[in-house]
């Protein structure tokens, strides 16, 4: 008791310079937060403003001439819906495939007893620092005859060895070796051990990895861009690329009246589309943040 008191006193006496530092630190961090927020707020504000205000350059951080008209127009835009539907499919299917493959890969690699462990670890690690590149990979996808199918989007990026390492590290560090040994003595096969012990005990890391894969798949345009020409299969990101970056609103998707209006609306609609496409992740993120952070931590344990 006495000891902590003196401690506190010293703390206080030394604190003056530090107090200034503290205030400065909070100001600096707050400024950084503002820098991060301004672009986001500006986009949201513009999406709710009239196109007249946007085109006149009046919108900063608050909507001018508040309107929902932009959103109504975008919701009529078929490509956005189609893209959304495809992306949801790719995200769900891709995540399921990726998580299953990654688990199957990480489990044996985490078992000290497994004879191929060291060799396979090294071999697969190599894929992280060297790969065949764009053209040879394209040729493999082409030769598999999966160009212009959903598989071209799902399979080539199905497993990231980095994520496998995260799972492997998790299993190695949180599930005691003794558990495996004692269950084995009792006649538990590797398969049963996986189902009865590894799966239930790995739930937290499975959640983390699933979210990693889901975000990657949601945001991925590269695969679809290289391997798809069939518009019906386009994920949202590819439509977004056309709309946002190449500035192509295909008039065919719209009735003439809207098509005419869209010319003047184009820029405002881009803001809406940014909001509509990004909102789901942004809304979910704060609730699952701690899982993502945990994944970073486990992944950082040296491979």
């Amino acid at each position, binding site marked *: 008791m006495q000891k902590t008191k003196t401690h506190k006193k010293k703390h206080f006496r030394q604190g003056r310079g530090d107090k200034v530092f503290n205030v400065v630190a909070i100001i600096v961090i707050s400024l950084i937060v503002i820098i*991060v927020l301004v672009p986001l707020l500006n986009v949201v504000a513009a999406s709710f403003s009239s196109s007249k205000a946007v085109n006149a350059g009046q919108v900063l951080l608050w909507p001018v001439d508040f309107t929902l008209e932009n959103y109504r127009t975008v919701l009529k835009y078929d490509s956005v819906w189609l893209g959304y539907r495809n992306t949801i499919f790719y995200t769900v299917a891709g995540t399921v495939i990726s998580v299953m493959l990654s688990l199957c890969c990480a489990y044996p690699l985490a078992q000290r007893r497994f*004879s191929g462990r060291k060799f396979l670890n090294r071999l697969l690690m190599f894929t992280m620092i060297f790969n065949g590149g764009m053209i040879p990979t394209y040729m493999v996808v082409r030769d598999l005859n999966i160009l212009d199918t959903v598989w071209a989007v799902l399979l080539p990026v199905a497993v990231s060895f980095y994520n496998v390492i995260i799972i492997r590290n998790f299993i190695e560090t949180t599930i005691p070796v003794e558990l495996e040994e004692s269950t084995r003595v009792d006649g538990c096969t590797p398969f049963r051990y996986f189902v009865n012990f590894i799966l239930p005990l790995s739930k937290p890391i499975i959640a983390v990895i699933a979210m990693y894969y889901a975000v990657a798949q949601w945001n991925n*345009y590269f695969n679809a861009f290289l391997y798809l020409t069939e518009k019906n299969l386009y994920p949202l990101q590819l439509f977004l690329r056309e709309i946002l970056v190449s500035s192509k609103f295909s008039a065919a998707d719209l009735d003439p009246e809207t098509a005419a209006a869209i010319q003047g609306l184009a820029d405002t609609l881009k803001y809406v589309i940014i909001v509509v496409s990004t909102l789901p992740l942004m809304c979910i993120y704060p609730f699952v943040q701690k899982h993502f952070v945990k994944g970073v931590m486990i992944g950082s344990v040296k491979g």
Partner: protein
Amino acid sequence: MRVKKIKTVIKRDWQYYLFMLPPLAYFIIFKFFPMIGLQIAFRDYTPRGGIWNSAWVGLENIIKFVESYQFERVVKNTFILSIYGLAVNTIIPIAFALIYNAIEKPRFKKVTQTIVTLPHFISVVVLVGIMMQLLNNRIGIYGILYENIFGVYPSDIFGEPKAFRHLYVWSSVWQNFGWNAIIYIATLSGVDAGLHEAAQLDGASRLKRIWHIDLPHLVPTIVILAVMGMGNIMSVGFEKAFLMQNNLNLEYSELISTYVYRVGLSGGTLSDFSYATAIDLFNAVLNLILIFIANKIARRATETSLW
């Protein structure tokens, strides 16, 4: 004897191998097959000859690339862009983590962290879209503010070749510094509080403690991440650069990876698979050399290394 040993191992471990089968199939098909396909870099690829039977030309394609007028441009652009990016994307998260860690307001910190990590989840396409809108010289926030201050509209920043690198790097800082800082922040939370108390008793200011206690604590993490970053130096993103490219900024925005795409896949029937692959291979080997060098230096200097 050996055969017998292998038999017992297989008998014991066959279920593990069964687990490995599907993921191994994935790696073999999508990672190792393309490595075999890399040999077309040394051939004159024709669809009829395929990977194995097209005419062997040796180093011709690679020499052609090295001697082409594009060589200097794309290698230089790639190199500068990644070094610049690596430096800024390392320093800023560290600085942020150090300041953030010094603050003792849990609620403030929590909200801050959520906000600064949020942009990490924006897709590249949308990020570039946001940039194009905000930096629009008339209706974007950049144009509006510029006009308010200087009375004239600025020129189109996306059309300025020299702006490309800064736009590329600083937009990725905006998007990722919070995310990249997570690892440093977590490492800092592991600093022994006793060290800080002892230093405080000796009269060390907060700033001094950051410099002499916190920063050294981060060194191993910084080294590992820097080595990994070095390994990715030549593979700097196709995705974003490609989206940001336009005819005006190609002089600075054409990278090895985007050039590979241009040569190999964008031209339809004119595509030169062999030449594109040769360029890509040149890049990948350079990459591999860089990561080995970086790892060696790291091990010598700090006794921390990737392997």
